[in-house]
């Protein structure tokens, strides 16, 4: 247990999980091994057609990466969550997550052969989780890939370079829900990770109750755009 009213759950590598995170509650994710990934989808719990919009989040805060104290914004201009802290200043949101074709190099795998160690793509895992909430392929959006760094080159094409070794066991990120959320994430390796072996690392999730962004919150002070998205979330919580 995290404390008297929170809880902890370890998501193994190559799996998926979903949870409801209430406004003000925090979700702390910690890598349980090297090159862990949590590819995350976010939906407003009370209107699941409102969801994380990565382009809006990035352009409003003039960033090609996710880092504290940025605000994750919905397509409706409302804060979904704030990134309150992290051991890293770079989490990817522009290169997506693995699909089944990315697993071909690891050879065939299915439940009959490998039981619960079967290899599944992040997409397959996310869809299975979405189906359980009445959502599906049309509800996919660009994921935040926590613990992943893919650096754009300054060249004419914007060549993307995966940064190996970016994450070690113990690295962490903490989110605070700014409205009630449906959080869905998968822990399959990132498709640009060149590792020859399938060795997905798990992620420890700690959920704790708390309060939404206070008046002097760093996310509110970060940029006027961040503050306006937080204000919009507050307005609809009244």
């Amino acid at each position: 247990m995290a404390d008297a009213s929170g809880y902890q759950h370890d998501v193994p590598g190559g799996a998926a999980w979903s949870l409801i995170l209430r406004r003000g509650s925090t979700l702390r994710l910690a890598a349980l091994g090297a090159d862990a990934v949590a590819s995350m989808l976010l939906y407003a719990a009370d209107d699941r057609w409102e969801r994380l919009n990565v382009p809006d989040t990035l352009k409003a805060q003039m960033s090609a990466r996710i880092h504290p104290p940025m605000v994750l914004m919905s397509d409706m201009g409302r804060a979904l969550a704030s990134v309150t802290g992290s051991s890293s200043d770079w989490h990817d949101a522009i290169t997506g997550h693995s699909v089944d074709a990315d697993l071909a190099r690891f050879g065939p795998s299915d439940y009959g052969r490998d039981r619960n160690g079967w290899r599944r793509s992040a997409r397959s895992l996310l869809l299975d989780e979405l189906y359980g909430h009445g959502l599906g392929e049309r509800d996919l959006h660009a994921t935040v890939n926590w613990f992943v760094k893919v650096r754009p080159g300054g060249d004419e094409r914007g060549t993307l370079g995966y940064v190996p070794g970016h994450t070690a066991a113990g690295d962490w990120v903490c989110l605070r829900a700014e409205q009630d959320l449906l959080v869905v994430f998968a822990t399959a390796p990132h498709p640009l990770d060149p590792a020859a072996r399938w060795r997905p690392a798990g992620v420890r999730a700690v959920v704790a109750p708390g309060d939404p962004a206070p008046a002097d919150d760093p996310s509110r002070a970060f940029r006027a755009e961040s503050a306006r998205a937080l204000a919009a979330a507050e307005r609809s919580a009244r």
Partner: protein
Amino acid sequence: MSAPVDPEVLFDVTVAAGDGWLGEIPAGGRLRIVDLHGNQAVDTLLYDARDTANRYSAVDTVRAQGSAYLTTGSVLRSVRLDPLATIVDDTCGRHDTLGGACAKESNVVRYGEHTRHQHACRSTFLRYAVAGGLEKRDLTHNINFFMNVPLTEAGGLTFEDGVSAPGKHVELRAERDILVLISNCPQVNNPCNGYDPTPVRLLGWAS
């Protein structure tokens, strides 16, 4: 020997500033988008015409090509990694697919409350999408033809003056039957349209 036959023209339309378009391009057909007056962002979404859940995916497209910007040779892929279209000609040189579309709500976040009732791409996307039997959850992260959103090695992202100019064009070849949904961007709060949204021309050929 017979003389070469000009490809059949499917359409030749001008989309006014702030208006949109939804149409089908058959496999092997081509769509040319002409930036008639220069520096005009053309927000574009693509769908497999036979299965619209198999829609354009910006992040899968950039990961598959290993680079962030779109230009000649870029294969525009779906969520299932299927090629929907290929950019076969590009006199502009570089197009964005990470900046998304403007919406009334994101305008408020970016520019303040005074922009809440300004026209925005998402309204255009939705109007044409709904008329075509699609709905809000069918909208996804789009392409911004003729828009310049440079990324930096330090992880920065900015909207800059367009790299386009009057008469520049980009041309797609459909790799299967596709639906193309376009919003000719009405944004007046940043340089993506040179602060003056203008019409664009769409030319379609059957081959």
